[in-house]
C-alpha cells in the first residue's frame, strides 16, 4: 500500500472534512474499511482498546478470523499483494478475501464500488487498499496472511516497488474479458524484479464476454508466466476465492526466519494523522519490534519511541510486539512523513542493524509547475495548505516564486502528472483555494559554455542563449497496449510528440504493444487524454524515465506591449516554436480586452519576433445618457468595470484578465 502520496489522494475524497469542498458524506467506519484508511484510522481506536491484548486461544476455531491477532510460526506467514488494472476487480476480490477469512463480518461489508475515488477512476489508477492481516486455516493449520496493496500508477512506481519488496508473493488479477493492460504489466515486472511468486488469477469469468483461455494465453505470451493452473474466479460471485487462499498458502513462500537478527523493518507507507502524528506502515524483515522500543530511522537518521504498535486487520489493532515476517503499523509522535519516508529502514536505537534494507531513494520531482493564488490575499493560505500537504507527502516540493503577471506563488515539484493533479485538486477542493497553474515543465539540464551544467525547471530562469551551449531534456520510454484498430492513430500521436519509434509487436492476434521513446515534456500535457481519445478509451500506457538527451530547444517569450510576461515563457523544440508562438499570440489577442491604445502581442525567441498580433484600441466606451438624474445604474456599471480592472494584472500599461493567463496556460498544456 502505499505511497504517502497516493494515499493522500484517497483521503482527499473520503476523509470527512468541514466546508463546502466536501463532495460526499464520509462512509461510516464499518463500511468498506479497506478503502477508508483515513476514516478507519481515526475511528478505530475504540476497537483497538478492547482488542489490544489478545488472549492466547486454540488455533482451531470455526470463526478463525476473530483470532487473527494470534501469533503463528513464521513458516505460516504469507505476505502478498494484488496487482490489477483499474476495474479488473481488485477491490471486490480483497473484500471477498476479508469476508471469507472472517476478518470482516459479512454484515459489515458494503458493496465495494461505492467509494472508488473519482480522480483515480478518471486517471486510470487502481484503487489502493488497506493492508490487512487475515487468519486462514488450511488443513487444520492456522496461517497468517498479510495483504499489502500497491498503488497502480507510474508516478508512484517507487512506492509500488517498496510495497512489493515487503511481500513474497503477488496475485496477478486480470479481467478475463479484457486482458492485460500496460500498467499491470509494469507492476508485474516490478514484482518479478523483487522475486515475488506470482499467482495468475482470471477474474470475472461469470461475465458473458469472458474469454479466460484467450487471456491466459495472453498472459503467457506477454509476461511469460505459466498460466496452466491460473485460478479462474469471480470475485463478485464468490467463485474461486478458497482456491485463491489455498494458492497463497501453498505457493507463496514464507518469510525467512531472521527474528534473532538486529531489527530491520521496511516502511512501505506512512501518512499523517493530525492527532497522533505520522502513522508508519512497515514489514518487519529482521528482528523484533516491541511497544516502547527506542527506534531509529536509518535514512532520515531520526529517533523516536514507538508509543504504539499494532496490526491492520483491517482497522488498527494494538499489539505488544511484531517479529520478522509480520506486517504492522507504529506511531511515535513523528511530525512529518518526510521523517518516515517510504523505503526507509527502521532499526533499534541501541542495537542498530549494520546496513539498511536496499532500495531506498529520495523522491525526485520530475514535473514542475507554478501555483499562484488568483486572489493575492490567499498567498499565505496557499503556503499553509502546501505545508500541510507536505506533512503527508514527502515527494511534494515547493519554493516561493514571484512573477509580475501572477504575483506571489510557489514553484512546485511533483513525481509526475498524476501527483500534480492530485495536489492541485486537493488544494482547490479541501483548502478552497483558487489557483492559477502554469504549464507544467520538466527539469532541463543546461550545459553552459563554461562547462557547468545547470538544472532548470522554470523557463523564465533559463540561462541566456549566450551563456548556454546546449540543453538536454528528460526522455521517457513509453509502452502502449492497444487493440489493433487504433495502431494508426496511436503511432501518429507518438510521431506528433517527437517520439522515436522503437518497436511494435502483436501480443495477441488483436492487441499490439507499441514502444516509443519521447521527451517527457511531450507527455506532461494532454498525452494521456489524447491516447484515450484516439483509442476510444481502449489503449493503456506505461512510461519510465530513460535519461537525458540533447535537443534543439529554445525559450519562447511572450511580450505584451513590449513587456515580457515571464509566466508565459516556455521552452519548446525549435521546430515547434513558430506554431506555438502563433497559437499563443492569437489566443491572447482573443482574450485581452482592448485597451485605450493599440497593443502589440508578440512571441519572441531572444530578440527575434516570430509571431505577432495587434490588439486595436477601443473605439468607444461611453454611456451617453444620464436620464432624469438617475445615475445609480450607470455608476453600478462603472463600478463593475472598475472591479473588472482590479481583477486584471497589469503588464506594463496593459490590463490582462486572469482568465487570459489561465486560457493561455491551458493552451500551452495542449500545444506544448
Amino acid at each position, binding site marked *: 500500500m502505499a505511497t504517502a502520496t497516493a494515499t493522500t489522494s484517497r483521503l482527499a475524497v473520503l476523509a470527512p472534512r468541514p466546508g463546502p469542498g466536501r463532495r460526499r458524506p464520509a462512509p461510516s467506519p464499518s463500511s468498506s474499511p479497506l478503502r477508508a484508511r483515513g476514516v478507519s484510522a481515526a475511528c478505530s481506536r475504540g476497537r483497538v482498546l478492547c482488542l489490544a491484548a489478545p488472549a492466547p486461544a486454540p488455533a482451531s476455531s470455526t470463526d478463525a478470523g476473530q483470532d487473527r491477532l494470534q501469533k503463528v510460526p513464521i513458516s505460516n506467514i504469507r505476505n502478498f499483494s494484488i496487482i490489477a488494472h483499474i476495474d479488473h476487480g481488485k477491490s471486490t476480490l480483497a473484500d471477498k478475501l476479508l469476508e471469507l477469512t472472517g476478518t470482516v463480518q459479512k454484515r459489515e461489508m458494503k458493496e465495494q464500488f461505492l467509494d472508488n475515488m473519482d480522480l483515480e477512476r478518471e486517471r486510470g489508477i487502481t484503487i489502493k487498499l488497506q493492508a490487512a492481516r487475515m487468519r486462514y486455516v488450511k488443513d487444520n493449520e492456522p496461517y497468517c496472511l498479510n495483504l499489502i496493496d500497491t498503488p497502480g500508477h507510474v508516478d508512484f512506481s517507487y512506492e509500488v516497488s517498496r510495497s512489493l519488496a515487503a511481500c513474497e508473493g503477488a496475485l496477478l488479477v486480470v479481467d478475463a474479458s479484457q486482458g492485460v493492460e500496460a500498467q499491470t504489466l509494469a507492476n508485474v515486472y516490478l514484482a518479478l524484479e523483487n522475486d515475488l511468486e506470482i499467482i495468475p488469477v482470471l477474474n470475472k469469468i461469470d461475465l458473458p464476454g469472458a474469454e479466460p483461455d484467450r487471456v491466459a494465453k495472453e498472459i503467457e505470451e506477454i509476461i511469460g508466466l505459466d498460466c496452466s493452473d491460473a485460478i479462474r474466479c469471480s470475485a463478485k460471485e464468490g467463485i474461486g476465492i478458497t482456491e485463491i487462499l489455498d494458492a497463497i498458502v501453498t505457493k507463496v513462500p514464507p518469510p525467512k526466519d531472521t527474528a534473532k537478527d538486529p531489527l530491520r523493518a521496511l516502511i512501505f507507507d506512512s501518512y499523517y494523522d493530525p492527532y497522533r502524528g505520522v502513522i508508519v506502515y512497515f514489514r518487519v524483515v529482521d528482528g523484533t519490534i516491541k511497544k516502547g522500543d527506542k527506534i531509529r530511522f536509518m535514512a532520515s537518521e531520526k529517533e523516536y519511541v514507538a508509543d504504539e504498535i499494532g496490526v491492520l486487520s483491517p482497522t488498527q489493532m494494538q499489539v505488544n510486539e511484531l517479529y520478522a515476517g509480520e506486517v504492522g503499523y507504529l506511531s511515535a509522535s513523528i511530525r512529518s512523513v518526510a521523517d518516515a519516508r517510504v523505503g526507509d529502514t527502521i532499526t533499534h536505537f541501541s542495537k542498530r542493524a549494520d546496513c539498511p534494507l536496499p532500495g531506498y531513494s529520495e523522491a525526485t520531482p520530475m514535473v514542475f509547475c507554478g501555483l499562484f493564488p488568483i486572489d493575492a490575499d490567499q498567498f499565505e493560505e496557499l503556503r499553509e495548505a502546501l505545508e500541510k500537504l507536505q506533512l503527508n507527502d514527502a515527494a511534494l516540493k515547493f519554493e516561493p516564486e514571484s512573477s509580475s503577471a501572477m504575483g506571489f506563488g510557489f514553484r512546485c515539484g511533483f513525481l509526475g502528472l498524476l501527483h500534480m493533479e492530485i495536489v492541485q485538486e486537493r488544494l482547490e477542493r479541501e483548502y478552497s483555494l483558487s489557483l492559477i497553474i502554469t504549464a507544467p515543465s520538466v527539469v532541463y539540464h543546461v550545459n553552459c559554455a563554461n562547462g557547468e551544467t545547470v538544472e532548470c525547471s522554470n523557463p523564465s530562469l533559463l540561462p541566456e542563449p549566450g551563456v548556454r551551449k546546449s540543453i538536454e531534456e528528460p526522455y521517457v520510454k513509453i509502452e502502449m497496449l492497444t487493440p489493433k484498430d487504433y495502431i494508426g492513430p496511436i503511432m501518429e500521436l507518438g510521431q506528433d510528440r517527437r517520439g522515436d519509434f522503437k518497436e511494435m509487436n502483436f501480443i495477441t492476434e488483436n492487441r499490439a504493444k507499441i514502444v516509443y521513446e519521447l521527451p517527457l515534456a511531450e507527455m506532461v500535457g494532454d498525452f494521456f487524454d489524447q491516447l484515450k481519445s484516439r483509442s476510444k478509451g481502449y489503449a493503456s500506457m506505461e512510461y519510465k524515465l530513460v535519461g537525458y538527451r540533447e535537443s534543439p530547444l529554445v525559450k519562447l517569450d511572450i511580450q505584451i506591449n513590449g513587456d515580457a510576461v515571464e509566466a508565459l515563457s516556455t521552452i519548446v523544440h525549435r521546430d515547434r516554436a513558430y506554431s506555438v508562438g502563433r497559437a499563443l499570440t492569437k489566443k491572447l489577442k482573443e482574450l485581452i480586452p482592448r485597451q*485605450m*491604445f493599440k497593443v502589440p502581442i508578440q512571441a519572441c525567441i531572444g530578440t527575434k519576433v516570430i509571431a505577432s498580433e495587434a490588439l486595436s484600441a*477601443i*473605439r*468607444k*466606451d*461611453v*454611456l*451617453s*445618457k*444620464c*436620464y*432624469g*438624474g*438617475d*445615475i*445609480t445604474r*450607470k*455608476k453600478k*456599471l*462603472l*463600478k463593475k*468595470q*472598475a472591479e*473588472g*480592472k*482590479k481583477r486584471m494584472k497589469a503588464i506594463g*500599461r496593459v490590463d490582462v484578465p486572469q482568465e487570459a493567463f489561465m486560457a493561455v496556460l491551458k493552451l500551452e498544456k495542449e500545444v506544448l
Partner: protein
Amino acid sequence: PLPIKSEPTRPAPRSRFRNAAIGLPARLPSPTKETAPNPPTPTTCSPICCLAAAAPHPPVPPPAPPPLPPASAYVHLPFCRKRCHYCDFPIVALGSSSPRGEDPRITDYVRLLLREVAATRPVSDDGGAPLETVFFGGGTPSLVPPRLVAAVLDALRARLRELVGAGVNRVSLGVQAFQEDLLRACGRAHGLEEVHEAVGIVTACEGLQNWSMDLISSLPNQTEEMWEESLRCTVDARPTHVSVYDLQIEQGTKFGQLYTPGVHPLPSDTESANFYKIASKRLSEAGYHHYEISSYCKPGYECKHNVTYWQNRSFYAFGLGSASYINGVRFSRPRRMKEYAEWVQNLEDGTWSHESGNSDTKEMAMDVVMLSLRTAWGLDLRSFSKSFGKSLSLSLCNTFKPFVESGLVVAMDVQQQALSPSDFELDLQSEFDFGSRAAFIRLSDPDGFLLSNELISLAFGIISP
C-alpha cells in the same frame, strides 16, 4: 470664461406652452406623438422637455458636499402613445385611440403624483433655496393635458416654496432622426412630416427661444450619409440646444431581441465612434458648444436642470421610477405603477421616509468624478482636493497622466486653458507643487469623451482600490 452660463433671462413663461407640460422625453427613448398643446394643430412630434422655472443659478460648479437643499425637481410623466423599440424606461403606453376627454390613466396618475408632492417634506422649512428648475420628463410629457401639468406646478409651489414665474420656458423635441425609414424602424409614433410640423410650432412660439432637439446615432441601418443629413437638418432648424445620444441596446427591448451591439445592421464600434466624432465636428462648426458628453448648446443655453445633476447637487423627484437625491441619498421610486402607488401610500402613512444622508466619502467622490468628467468644464481639482484630500486628487492625476500625454485627457489651468502635458507633469512632481498650475482636468472632445467609461472606471479604481 465661465463654462456655464445661466439661462437666458427670465420671463420665459409667456408662451403658448405656459403651464403646459410639454411631453418631452428627456431620455433617449422618448416617443412623442402628441396633440399640440394648444389649439388646433394636429399631432406634433412633441418633443419634449420642459423646464418650468427661472432664477439664474451660479455658473461654475463647485460640487458641494455636504449637499445644499435641492433647488431642482424632476417630475416623471410616463405616458406615450406606444413604446419605441429601444426604450426600457418606466412608461405607460396609451395606444393610439385617445378616449374622449381626459384619459383616466393620466388623471389617476396625476392624482397620485399630487399626493406624493403633498406628502413630501421639504428639506428645510426655513426655506432653503426655492426651486430654480422643474423638469418634466417622460414618457411624452406633452401627452398630459396642460390643466394637469399646471396642477402639478401649483402643488410644487405650494409645497416646496415659491417657484419664480412658473411656466414652461424650454422644450425639447425628440426628433431622433430625419429619415422616415429610421423613424419607422425605431417604432417611433411619428414620421418626418410631424417632425417638421413640431419644429414649426416650437419656433413659431413666441417667448420660447430656448428649445432643444434630440438625435440618436448608431441606429440600425443608419449610414454616415444619413447621419450627416440629420445633423444638417438639425443645424438648419436652429435649436438652441442639441442632445445627441448614442443608441444603447437594452435587454428586454425589441432592439435587445433583434440586435447585437456592433453587429450588422447596427454599426460597428468604429462606425459608431465615427458618428460621434462627426456630430462633434458638425455641431461645433455650427457654433454649438459640446459642453457634456451628449449635449451641445449655443452659448448660454446649457440645460440648467441637467447641469444640476452634473454638479452633483441635490434635487427632488416625483413620479413613477424617478430618482431623487436629497440629503446625500439617492433614491429611485418603484418602476411599476402598482408598487409606486403603494409606495406613495406608505409615504403618506409615514411608514417610509428618506434616510438621512450619511453617505460614504468614497461614494461621494465617485459621484463627483463620474458626473463632472462628463462635462467640458471637467473636474475641479481644488474643490475635489478640499472635499476628498489632496493625495487622492494627486493619485487621480497621476493615473491620468499617460492619457494627458496621449490626448484623451486635458489638464486645464484656472482659466480653463489647456496645459501642456509637460506643464501638467511638473505639477505632479510633489504634493507641494500639485495644483500650482492645474486647476481642472477634463476628457477631450471627442476622443476622451468616447472612452469616458474606461477613464472614469480607472478613476473609480483609484478612489476605491
